[in-house]
């Protein structure tokens, strides 16, 4: 476990949003293992998941994580050093006050939770203070959202499709935007530390 003894309070970024689908659970698990206690900013995880599985997913992530992992209630405030997992069958939106807004609106691009909704709303709220990370997945959810992050001067990092269990999602993002960083999962984690710590 890495202690964040040198956590910078002047870190430019204020929020990390992570999107993933098929194969992303393993990647996110590893990410949560390497994040230090005291990671200074919130992490929002928008992972495609079975809507009827209401328990087990967050518990499995918590087991491996150095930071708390929660499924937020509507209107919860995002806090540094906590990972927020979009609840099954809800969209997770982020507002300008750093709060979670959940939505039961219809699926967008066949997805609920929608990575695009999370990324788009976070990009408007956090602009150049946002890091977006796109992982392995089997559809193009997240491509629109990544373009929003870029257009609002945020930072977009993408898992190398060659490193992905399913390369469709990262490839669709790379087709849509010029990502700031492309790497295998270990490379993404290291870059995230560099940006935030």
């Amino acid at each position, binding site marked *: 476990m890495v202690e964040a003894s040198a956590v910078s309070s002047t870190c430019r970024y204020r929020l990390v949003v992570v999107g993933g689908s098929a194969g992303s659970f393993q990647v996110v698990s590893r990410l949560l293992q390497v994040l230090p206690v005291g990671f200074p900013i919130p992490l929002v995880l928008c992972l495609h998941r079975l809507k*009827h599985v*209401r328990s087990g997913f967050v518990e499995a992530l918590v087991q491996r994580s150095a930071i708390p992992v929660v*499924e*937020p*209630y*509507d*209107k919860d405030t995002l806090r540094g050093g906590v990972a927020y997992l979009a*609840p099954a*069958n*809800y969209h997770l*939106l982020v*507002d*300008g006050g750093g709060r979670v*807004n*959940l*939505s*039961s*609106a*219809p*699926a*967008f691009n066949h997805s609920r939770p929608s990575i*695009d*909704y999370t*990324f*788009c*709303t976070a*990009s*408007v*709220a956090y602009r150049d203070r946002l890091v977006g990370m796109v992982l392995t997945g089997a559809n193009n959810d997240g491509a*629109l*959202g990544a373009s*929003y992050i870029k257009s609002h001067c945020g930072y977009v990092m993408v898992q190398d499709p060659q490193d992905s269990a399913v390369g469709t999602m990262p490839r669709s993002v790379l087709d849509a935007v010029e990502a700031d960083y492309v790497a295998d999962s270990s490379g993404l984690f290291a870059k995230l530390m560099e940006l935030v710590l």
Partner: protein
Amino acid sequence: MGLASGGIVSPGVSLSVRELREVVDLLQLLYGVDFSCWSSMQLSMRLVSVVRDFGFRTLTELMRFLVDNRDNGSVYDDFLDHLYVPTTEMFRDPGFWRTLRDVLVPQLVQDRGEELRFCVANQDSGEELYSLLIVLDELGLVHRSSVLFLYMSSLRGNRVRVGLLRDRVGDSDRANFERYSPGGDLDRWVLKEGNTRFFAPDLLQGVDFRSVGIDSDLGEDLQNIDLLLCRNHFLYYTRTSVEVQLVQFLPHLRYGGYLALGIQEHLDRSQREGRFEEWDVGESIYRKVGY
């Protein structure tokens, strides 16, 4: 992007504070309805959706359309029908409906007898109501109970009143129902007429359909509700507006009656204090214990 620039709307684009204020002011001017009770984020997202549904490219086009048709009540009604989020699936959260069937409603019967009062108050597009009626039918209570359905859009209310289902009973509905009642057949409650499907008309005929305003005022004559279904409704409102609605709902709930929210909604301590106790945290069901 906005009313002045007439920019193209896309999902997730929030209107600026000024733009949203313009829209809210315009809607107040046109219809006398104050949408500032809605969360800014949620209103933005829903307006973007309405723009798309109406086939426009920009919010300005939508607003101009509403202005040009301000004397046409059906246009406003259609706007409301699209603005309010549809429920999208029957038996959403099957565990909640099992709790209702197996625990909560039997408890109510034990406490109060079989003449119970239920209210669906979340601007439901029908799916919550149909699910409730099926539960009550399975328990043999549907013709003994009072069920009230509240709506703002007459289009939506009328569609639900006749039980009009989406083109087909969807895979989500069936999958949810299977989890609610393994081996059960949802089609028992579906009537097919040609290519159109309707929910069981005999169960709907006893439902009291009432139009309400944006403040969800239930009216003085509605009292002693045993279960108020308000699931995934407060998501779209500001915290202040949620408090207003809770205060409005409370007198209509019987002491010991229940308020059901969406499973990712909750009442914090200050919202519960002196009013509700947590009855089932996992299913977000609260019991009235105060006034």
